């Protein structure tokens, strides 16, 4: 188990290998530095631009409370919010009471996406805190989350009446976020009838 090479005949070769080995940390570091440089200047909370204006990606997912029922993107209908939540996400507990209020005010339809969770834990979360969702998709492997560009939880997507993703909000939703950020964008494609729609939403 000695670290020093004893055998003189292969000394040169092992010396070379040794030097390569000692270069390894430097190479790994350079690779990481390049990677970090590419991350600079990009806003990690920004929605991948190719998704804006696109329809909801296609999926086949079971519902959180009915593992036997599978639904697809066709069964969602905007204008709506898709709220990404998980029982492991601390901020989701903070956000949830406002989602309950929002749902009770009937201002908007909210779909839930239970992201990378265990089914029993997700169910417990909703049972404990209340259910503001029209339906809850269960995304245990995070596949749908990847397709939608989910970065973490909580996140909320705004879907307009044409079932297009128009906005992605990272972080919790509260009254301020709903009134100033989400609601204006949800109805932005209907400038002409904007007053009508927001009027309805306010009721």
């Amino acid at each position, binding site marked *: 188990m000695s670290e020093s090479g004893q055998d003189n005949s292969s000394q040169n070769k092992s010396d070379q290998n040794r030097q390569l080995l000692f270069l390894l940390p430097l190479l790994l570091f350079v690779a990481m530095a390049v990677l970090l440089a590419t991350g600079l200047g990009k806003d990690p909370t920004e929605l991948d631009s190719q998704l804006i204006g696109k329809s909801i990606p296609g999926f086949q997912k079971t519902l959180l409370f009915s593992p036997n029922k599978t639904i697809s993107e066709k069964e969602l209908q905007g204008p709506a919010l898709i709220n990404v939540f998980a029982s492991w996400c601390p901020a989701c507990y903070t956000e949830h*009471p406002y989602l309950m209020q929002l749902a009770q005010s009937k201002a908007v339809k909210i779909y839930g996406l239970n992201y990378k969770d265990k089914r029993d834990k997700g169910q417990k979360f909703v049972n404990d805190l209340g259910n503001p969702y029209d339906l809850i998709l269960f995304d245990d492997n995070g596949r749908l989350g990847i397709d939608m560009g989910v970065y973490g939880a909580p996140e909320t997507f705004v879907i307009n009446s044409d079932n297009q993703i128009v906005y992605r909000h990272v972080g919790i939703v509260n009254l301020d976020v709903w009134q100033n950020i989400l609601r204006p964008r949800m109805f932005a494609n209907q400038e002409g009838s904007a007053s009508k729609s927001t009027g309805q939403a306010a009721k």
Partner: protein
Amino acid sequence: MIPEIGNLALAFGLALALIQFVVPLVGIATHRWRLAIIAKPAAIGQFFFVCLAFVCLAYSFYANDFSVAYVASNSNRSLPVAYRIGATWGGHEGSLLLWVFMLSSWTLAVALLSKSLPALTRTRVLSVLGFVSVGFLIFILFTSNPFDRLLPVFPVDGSDLNPLLQDPGMVFHPPLLYMGYVGFSVAFAFALAALLEGRIDTLWARWVRPWTQAAWMFMTLGIAAGSWWAYYELGWGGWWFWDPVENASFMPWLLGTALLHSLAATEKRGVFKAWTTLLAIAAFSFCLLGTFLVRSGVLTSVHAFANDPVRGTYILVFLGVTVGASLILFAVRGSKVSVTSWYNLLSRELLFLINNLILAVVTIMILLGTLQPIIADFFNLGKVSVGPPYFNTVFNILMAPLIFLVGLGPIVNWRKYEYSELVKRTRLSLLASIVVGLLVAVLADDKIFTDRLQLFVGAFLIVWVLVLNIVDWWKKAAKKNRNPLLGLFSISPSFLGMYFAHIGLAIVVFGVVFSSHLSIEKNLRLGIGQTQEVAGYEFYFEKISDVVGPNYDAIRGHFIVKQDGENVAILHPEKRQYRVSGQWMTEAGIDANLARDLYVAMGEKIPESNDWAVRIYVKPFVSCLWLGSILMGIGGLLAMTDKRYRAKVKQKLGISDDAVVSGAA
């Protein structure tokens, strides 16, 4: 006036740091010794000016000088004085100043306490530390100056400190953590000095060890304090979230732990020399990386400071220069370091090697998980993140064998150890650990198989580490004193520190395993005057009252907790609204003792009723997390006080004394 003095002090600090970095190196290269010895006075001067700048900033907060932009955006007249001082490091600029202040304090300590070092080594170490200081002072002065003024029109009042930070935790968590972060710069500087000299030996390891132990101690306590703060301040009862910034502080801690062990092997046996220097470089590089991740805006996190690409670019360049140059030096010089020692397959050296490998792999896995959003983005996989399930799985699977080794480490001898001896010394402990593990797994109520397995492994490891370490401690004590009980604290501080740290670790594991498996958490709707039973405790929601705080208004809940008809605790959770920002904060009401925490946090009021959404948790053994961490910290402190680190060694100008090297084993 005061902010201008601070600004000027920073500039002087930078000038002295430059002198401390450049002049000694020139002096050494040109053999002009009088130039080289300037390192020490420059370091002392640098400390003086950076300290002055820090005091100026703290004073600006104390005096409510809102013409200073940084004060205006992080303080407020109605903020209590203690938080105003704490607000000094509540934002990006001030926390960087704290970083440099800590760095210059460590530098001062090295300059004053390193008389036993060869002058050449001491000079090189100070020069490297000077370089790090230069990098950060330039960063502060040119991209993040905390003394920038809002003139001529400045606000009458400030926009207040982030309410999340208005907490006693803010006053000591960042300083402790930064002491740890920055402390690893000393080990880093020693590693570079050794590589420059081309000499890494027992003596070198003995110099570095106490500095590393000190940094490790601060970091352990700093991370624990942060975890405790998150636990009671976020109102959710969790204490670790695998948030990028938590990971950023955890990775250097893991590498620092590896470094502590490999340094021990280098000191005692002269092995792992190159690896030890690499670890010292890596530990500090991860500290710099953490700084980058928090301040560049490449990742989202609850801790992240305001996002500014210029700052990100600067830190990345500085990181590249510092780490890149160190690793080039390592590649050139490290390969020349020869090791002439040997060890057997079963020996403490081997255990330390496995320890180091596991810690390095865990660090890399956490790094990959943390950077995963950037990696995925780089390969156009979209922005994804792995989340806690990944970290928990990887971490548990890799750490279990490591903790198993913590039981063996103190027993197995350096160089070689007999298998038969090992079996003889561990068979009873093994039996006890298995029995306890099985009992725990079987007796736990309605758990699924994987939970029982985790409980078994957890209980097994806790008993294993505790029994083996305590028995070993006892045996050593018995050699010191006829009454082993009296001998327990007369063994050498190095060993005493080790037992404290290992036992502390076992207690932390105990807290982790049992609090996560036995906690009862109820989120429910509770009306005033109603009672809810949770885990044998009756929580009576007596009333709510309004509270007026210095800069917030709060609704306070009054909960009386009874067990078997007796009052055991009165809890006062609060919902606070801070006046300036209008933000709501949750203050949990917690009653803690060693066996369990009773935890109540209030959610929203349910409209048109007298009911509230309430979170009631009964969490057993959470206190063990903090208790164990404190024991680990004490362990680091004890190890540091070992007399042999302060023994005078007759040395002149870096000429090595081979007798010292070969004599120590």
